[in-house]
């Protein structure tokens, strides 16, 4: 059961992040990938730190859309790289 509802995101350092499918659907790109690639998506250009932050964002976005509007804090050091990653993730 769990396997079907989750998606695995693999970073450049081959660290794996397993998140719910709902969370992954926040990004249309990942949602599309996950459909095709058996629930696993690799991101060779995105580092683990950034990918971790992205996963946190997914969960935050889910919460936000369900009504719980909190603030999503981003460490400034991460921001520059973080900005470039979603560039193609959100298409």
């Amino acid at each position, binding site marked *: 059961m769990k396997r079907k509802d989750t998606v695995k995101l693999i970073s450049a350092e081959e660290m794996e992040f397993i998140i719910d499918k709902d969370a992954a659907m926040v990004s249309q790109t990942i949602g599309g990938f996950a459909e095709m690639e058996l629930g696993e998506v690799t991101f060779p250009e995105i580092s683990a730190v950034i990918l971790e932050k992205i996963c946190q964002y997914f969960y935050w976005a889910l919460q936000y859309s369900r009504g719980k509007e909190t603030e999503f804090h*981003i460490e400034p050091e991460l921001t*520059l790289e973080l900005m470039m990653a*979603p560039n193609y993730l959100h298409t």
Partner: protein
Amino acid sequence: MPVLRSRKILPVQPKPRKAQANIDPPATPTQGREQPATHSSPPSLTPSPKTLGSVSGSAPLLRRSLRLSTKASSNAGQDSVLEAEERIERRNGDVSRKRKLSVDNDVGFESGEDDESGEDEGVLSLRSGKRVTKKGPFGDGNGSGGDVEFEIDRKGKSMLVEESEDTEKPERSKERVNVKGKRRYSREEKGKWKLLVESALDSKDESLVDGSVSDVELLAQEVNLSDEKPSKKNNRRTSQGRMERFRDTARQNASRFAHFNTQEEDDNILSMEAESEIPSEELEEKGVEDWPGPFSTAMKIIRDRAANLNVRQGSSSSDKVQSLQIKWVPQKCKRKDWSKRLPPSLLDLSLRVLVDNADAIASLAHVPDALRHKLCHMLCDSRRMDSNFFDLLLNGSPTEIRLKDCSWLTEEQFTQCFEKCDTTNLTILQLDFCGHCFADYNLPSTLARSPNSLPALTTLSLTGAYRLSDAGLSALVSSAPALRSVNLSQCSFLTHSAIDILATSLASVLLELFIDDCQSIDAMLVLPSLKKLEHLEVLSVAGLESVTDSFIKEFLIARGDGIKELILMDCWKLTDSSLKIIAETCSNLRALDIGNISKLTDTSFGYLASGCRSLQSLKLCHNAFSDDAIAAFLEMSGEVLKELALNNVGKVGLNTALSLARRSRNLVSLDLSWCRNLTHEATGLIVDSCLSLRVLKLFGCSQITDVFLYGHSNAKVEIIGLKLSPFLEHIKTPAQGPFQYSSV
């Protein structure tokens, strides 16, 4: 001073275009203005064909008649008033905009005639609404007074109706005597009619006038000689009674003139130019039935639709609303969906953090240009842009730099930063509002270091560079030979020779040229250079007052088929004939901006609908189009339309809403600000039917209630302007690519 427009004064016009505020202290011109609308033209309005065989006649005469009748000493007779009124009625029936000088001439000449109106002498009202008082009892003082009157009228001082005016005239004339040229004096000797003609001419544009004055004079002389003597006496007799009448009318209509319109004053000048177009304009003076076929059919359908609705449901306007209400019911059940809001994207969040910490950014390497532009955009908006970030931008070998606001940049900073910049790969350079930092003398060290120092530069935007001269531009152009898009808006120092330089070196490559608000550029002088640009796709001459119908005509006949976007906002001298030319020549036109051109009438829409079939973006602002015309246009061309702005087009109403809902499937952006005839049912219908709609602007539409805001079912539309909410995000960021329509 209220300028009488030679255009048709439609009796149903809600706002008098001709109204001008009397800004000058002694001014009380309103009366004169109003008169045309309400009174018939003064005796001088005897049919122009009689005198000159010219056409116009009716429309401009309206004004004149007012003046003539109201003005002073002239002896307008009762019968002349009546006749004038008839004439005015006739005229009002036409939709003519001709401002023919000949009419003015006629007026002047005809004033002497007794045929139609009792009043011959006295005051000749010029098209511009000036009155030239005839010599009559005032003798030479009035002769110059005629000139004076013009000036006075011009400035809104024409106290046409006041009796005191008469007495003032001689005083004024004395003042003015020196003002007018010597020509006047000679005219005075020959009679006032000539003054009238002259004043009409002079009031506008000296240069234009000079050319035509001589023609007019000749004509005037012919007419005057025949009419002089008998008319004088008649005018004197009837003037007093008229003045009373006109004064009353003026009082009633004074409120209409409270709105000052600079365009009104200069209308007469256009009469000169319009002369050449009189024949073509005559053709256009037809009613709806004469419009290009499909458009007139569409118009009829719209009107029938309205009529049928009324017939079916009763005649009250509420019934029409009723029919729309039936069609659109606000979806209350959706209310809870609205609370579910989209979370801001990660990109936005990170951008915000970056903007807040911009000084901590160490390097922008590897950041793609699109993100750089977004960063700059946000930094400029929040005024956090500084030279450190500018340095970061220029680091390495940048390819694109877009700064929408360089007002914070000083000359030293600019020079220092650019000196060390490697510009060999620069393709897009946008430094808007750079006047503070940019002048001729820092060009050689920054942008124009050497010929071909900007080899890859294709897009250059230096708006607001008010210290850039023609020589500076020449240096720039020599260092950037591959330029294809140039934006020189608000560079007020540039003259037509700058455009000459552009045209000479970039004739075969220039795609886009923006010369908005370059006040020293005269459109007619620039015309030959513009015609040399072989591949021009985008031309913006917004705000250039010298743009006239003949400019448009000549330019488009030469280059119209390649033009894809025309921005003619604020070129208020243009008339329907320009739109006719546009429709005939610009078959590839994708975007058109005709905002603030109040002389356009519904005929323009007829032309547009039949001519520009691929029009994707249409921007109107403060235009006087009717609801039916816009609706008919949408019925015909609404499918391709992506962007429509009906800002302040006050007559927009239910018909337009219905047509939008039915036809505009591809509409993405809609601006209905200040359209106060729209109900929330109408907007609800539009929003629910136009499924591609993403932005709807409703500034100034306080009549739209929350029923619409919370009741519409289009989740993707962003409604801007109704409540206090951030509304700057939707402002179009510059095209991401170097050009708007072509690829590199």
